[in-house]
């Protein structure tokens, strides 16, 4: 048992966050960061992650593009999906502000609104943000029709979906980080 513990400590892939860099198997318990879980709890966490992930697809928050991102995650890129998603929310905050400011101008510059939303939609679709993408398309329809009121109303919807998705994904990634990488705890504890 001790030999396994030492081997694990030496061979666990180090993730970026140092608090999760040690895992030891001690008589059926897994120490992950500052928490100690039984292997049953670990698989429960992992189950929770899977359930939460599936619900994001079922409820239409995410589409197949998110799977494309997950495909690019591996040992060299262990937090790839979280990185891309975080960067999206950081990038697009600027576009949201641009649009908000542009909507307060009179008369409305539909070209500017459309350009900003075009960029926003491209980035949103690339992370698989389904509802956000659909609302963005709606916004562009109103821009094209030069319907100012429609734009303002539609933008509120875009922001609503954007904020909701951000919250959901924050929860999801927190849970993913708690559950840890697959390889480590999938090895059953042997006495």
């Amino acid at each position, binding site marked *: 048992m001790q030999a396994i513990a030492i081997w694990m400590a030496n061979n666990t892939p180090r993730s970026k966050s140092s608090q999760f860099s040690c895992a030891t198997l001690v008589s059926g318990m897994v120490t992950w960061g500052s928490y100690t879980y039984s292997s049953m709890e670990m698989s429960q966490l992992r189950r929770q992650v899977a359930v939460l992930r599936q619900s994001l697809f079922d409820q239409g928050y995410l589409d197949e*593009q998110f799977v494309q*991102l997950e*495909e690019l995650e591996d040992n060299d890129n262990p937090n790839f999906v979280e990185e891309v998603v975080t960067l999206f929310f*950081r990038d697009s905050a600027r576009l949201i502000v641009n649009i908000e400011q542009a909507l307060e101008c009179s008369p409305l510059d539909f070209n500017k609104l459309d350009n900003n939303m*075009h*960029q926003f939609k491209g*980035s949103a679709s690339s992370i698989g943000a389904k509802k956000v993408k659909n609302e963005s398309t709606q916004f562009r329809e109103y821009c094209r029709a030069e319907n100012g009121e429609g734009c303002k109303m539609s933008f509120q919807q875009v922001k609503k979906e954007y904020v909701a998705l951000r919250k959901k994904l924050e929860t999801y990634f927190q849970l993913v980080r708690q559950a840890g990488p697959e390889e480590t705890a999938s090895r059953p504890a042997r006495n």
Partner: protein
Amino acid sequence: MPRVLAYRRHPRRPNRRLRGSKAFSRDVIVEEAGNLLQLRNRITALVVDNSISIQLYHTALLSRFGVDNRAVENGQQVVDLYCNGASFDLILMDNFMPVVNGRQATRTLRAMGVRSMIVGVSSVFREDERQEFIDAGLDDFQEKPLTCAKLIHILRELESSLSF
């Protein structure tokens, strides 16, 4: 005003109309990527996009296929790179960017005589947006999001043109 060369139909590459591919299930993605596309040549690519998340995603996708790549933020930076003597086999060009957008950059590069494969990667709303971008001198156009399958298609086209 420099004379713009005829480049829309590359002499070796037919001008194919692009169809977006449907989303693939995870197994198919893994299989396609696994089968590979064994690239015969060392290919270099440049990602041109204002959004950092897109840059990260597209460069990771390219790296997955063993393509040497880098990213820049706007059309002006691409033109500067080429003016300084850099060259890439493939350019993935977004359209709406600050300073110099994709259409302008593509036009400028073609006017400079650049023969790299330029693929427009942008979100589309109207058909005329797409056509205007293609008319600026693209070899190909793919609607965002860029998937594994779309990139495989692009790389295959590129490989076949490079083998002539």
